[in-house]
């Protein structure tokens, strides 16, 4: 590097002399180097210092949070001190195990009543409701409503209505909901209100009106998947209420709109069949139940649909087919019991997370059939049914989080190993380049002065001025390369390497310690999940056993009826 730099500097005077000879007829124009050294040295730090500003770091942190990288967000935020930074920091703390610090920060921001106050108050409401602390939620709900805007305000109003509903103030909740804009939150509020009305009222009219309003408001949701799921729930609820009040025509109007790719489809089809049966249209009822039988028995409604087929044939007078239908149902239930037993054995052997959660994912190439296959796979069906319970969601979430953390720690451990090896392999001579660089600086100063002198004499726009300009650029590049070399020399110094190695070794030790803790925690979390899963599957097995008993009773009744009918006919003259 030193030789090349010196060579370039040696060339400069030669170039200057050549230019001087070529322009002998003009006022003596020799190439003098502009004294840019001091100027460049003064300017370079300004160019080099492009560290993000506090505002930029806050914006970078916001994206990191959206990208599910809370540690990276905390790295960007550093010690930044603004309402936005505090709010982002609190959100990152929530995701990295610092819940108490996060709550304190949210309280400070909410109490200040300024920027992000509404968001912070809403976060406090949700945290309080998660912890079943309605009193704490009520303390912050007004701030959340008053300081929020847009969808956040709608969400805050939903929680206000929900708190009123839980306190038994359904009229007040209804008034709050009536002031909301159309969309998901308002629809969800009316759905919850309808659930309360259906529990307290004998007449389902109020509940059905709420559900109709919810259906209209759900159509205004900008998220189509969420809107479709909520609408299916509303339609099913309305259909069941109508069935219970024996308004079968109304029930059919709701139930036939439930989409068949929904998790609720088997239940909707079963009730659809019940509604048809209520109108004595057993043919249509059996068509609905026949479609429901295609779904896994894990789904609510599917087992009842099997029994429904037998009942339908029975009511229609086809006793032979009724017997066959009941026998087919009995066979299906026995087969499902075997599947459940196999699943429970897999859970005991491999753990619930592996046997139920990860194995429910599709690994084959026919991913584009995922939607139609999802609901027919028993494992996925049991997983969806299991995940309806909040406790199950928490338990699975714990194991999934620890699984992700484990992979992240493995990756970091791998990276740190590479960094340490790189540092060990990095061989800088360690000798100082100061002497060579000083020599270079001296020569550069001389050449720069000569360029300046020549530039002063060259007329603007002339070919000589153009050549001088190009030489000035060359000088700039030389200076930049000199700086690069100085920095590399500094980086390669034993002191810097030692400091980096020390930091990396500390990180590596820390990672090993965290990996051991993680293994122990994961074992505990998986044990909890396994217990919950086995309890659930055993419950399902008992339900199938009960349904099997009912089927066998139906078969017994049927054969008893046939036997008595046969005896009567045999006894008649």
């Amino acid at each position, binding site marked *: 590097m030193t030789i090349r730099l010196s060579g370039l500097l040696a060339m400069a005077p030669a170039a200057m002399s050549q230019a001087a000879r070529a322009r002998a007829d003009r006022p003596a124009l020799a190439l003098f180097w502009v004294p840019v050294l001091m100027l460049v040295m003064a300017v370079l730090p300004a160019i080099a210092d492009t560290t993000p500003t506090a505002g930029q770091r806050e*914006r970078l942190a916001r994206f990191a949070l959206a990208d599910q990288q809370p540690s990276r967000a905390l790295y960007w935020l550093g010690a930044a001190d603004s309402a936005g930074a505090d709010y982002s920091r609190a959100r990152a703390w929530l995701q990295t195990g610092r819940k108490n610090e996060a709550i304190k920060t949210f309280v400070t921001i909410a109490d200040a009543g300024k920027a992000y106050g509404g968001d912070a108050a809403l976060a406090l409401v949700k945290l309080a409701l998660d912890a079943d602390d309605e009193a704490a939620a009520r303390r912050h709900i007004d701030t959340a409503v008053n300081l929020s805007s847009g969808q956040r305000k709608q969400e805050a109003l939903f929680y206000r209505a929900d708190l009123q509903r839980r306190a038994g103030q359904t009229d007040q909740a209804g008034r709050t909901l009536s002031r909301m804009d159309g969309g998901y939150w308002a629809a969800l509020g009316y759905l919850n209100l309808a659930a309360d009305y259906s529990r307290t009222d004998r007449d389902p009219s109020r509940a059905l009106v709420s559900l109709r309003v919810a259906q209209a408001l759900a159509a205004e949701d900008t998220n189509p998947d969420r809107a479709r799921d909520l609408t299916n729930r509303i339609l099913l609820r309305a259909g069941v209420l109508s069935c219970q009040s024996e308004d079968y025509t109304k029930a059919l109007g709701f139930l036939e709109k439930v989409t068949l790719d929904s998790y609720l489809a088997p239940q909707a089809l079963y009730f659809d069949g019940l509604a048809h049966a209520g109108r004595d249209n057993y043919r249509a009822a059996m068509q609905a139940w026949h479609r429901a039988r295609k779904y896994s028995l894990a789904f609510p409604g599917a087992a009842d649909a099997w029994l429904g087929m037998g009942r339908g044939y029975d009511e229609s007078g086809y006793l032979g087919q009724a017997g066959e239908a009941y026998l087919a149902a009995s066979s299906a239930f026995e087969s499902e019991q075997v599947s459940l037993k196999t699943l429970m054995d897999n859970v005991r052997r491999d753990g619930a997370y592996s046997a139920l959660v990860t194995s429910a994912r599709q690994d084959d190439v026919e991913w584009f059939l995922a939607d139609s296959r999802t609901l027919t796979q028993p494992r996925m069906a049991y997983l969806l049914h299991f995940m309806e319970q909040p406790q199950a969601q928490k338990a699975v979430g*714990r194991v999934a989080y620890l699984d992700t953390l484990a992979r992240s720690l493995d990756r970091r451990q791998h990276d*740190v190993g590479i*960094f340490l090896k790189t540092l060990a392999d990095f061989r800088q001579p360690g000798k100082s380049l100061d002497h060579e660089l000083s020599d270079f600086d001296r020569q550069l100063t001389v050449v720069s002065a000569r360029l300046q002198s020549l530039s002063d004499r060259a007329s603007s726009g002339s070919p000589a001025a153009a050549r001088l300009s190009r030489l000035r650029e060359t000088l700039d590049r030389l200076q930049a*390369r000199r700086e690069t070399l100085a*920095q590399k020399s500094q980086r390669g110094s034993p002191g810097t390497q030692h400091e980096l190695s020390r930091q990396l070794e500390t990180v590596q030790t820390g990672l090993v310690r965290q990996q051991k803790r993680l293994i122990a925690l994961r074992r505990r979390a998986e044990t909890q999940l396994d217990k919950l899963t086995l309890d659930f599957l055993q419950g399902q097995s008992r339900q199938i056993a009960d349904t099997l008993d009912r089927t066998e009773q139906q078969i017994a009744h049927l054969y008893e009826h046939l036997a008595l009918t046969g005896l009567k006919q045999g006894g008649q003259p």
Partner: protein
Amino acid sequence: MSERCFKVVKMRWPALVFALAVVSPHVFGDSLDHDIDALARDVSDLSQTLYGVEDAMLFPADTRVAVYLSVADRDSFVLDSVELSINDQPAISHLYTDQERQALAQGAIQQLYMGNLPAGQHTLTATLNGQAANDHYVRQQHQFTLRKRAGETRVQLVVEAGPQGQQPDFALREWQ
């Protein structure tokens, strides 16, 4: 006294076991969550330390180039994905989630790429895919010249509303 205590325990142990069975999932669940939180805290601290060391080691200041991305006009364009090439070599591509799009619309900045380049002139090619204001799907490519000087170079790609709000435009700004 001890015999009396033993009798009390002996009589009441079924109740104790029952209470433990009912309470234990909550107690153990809560203590497990507490321990997981403690682990998450320590891992986060380690991660932040490592980010600093990574930046110092992998991307030394003299060769560091960082490319950021932001959206100036939230209504002009729904960003689906972006691809970045440097000197005709693919550098990075990113597919955006709804949350990331929302964050960008609210003013967030994404660190799209961090790498090393020697001093001199380089070509930066950015291709963006998404939906324009008129609901048409758009794939646009822009080429920029990047001049790498000594020290860090940080540039920001800004997606702006194009003329007449139809097609979006890309601008490259250098951080000073």
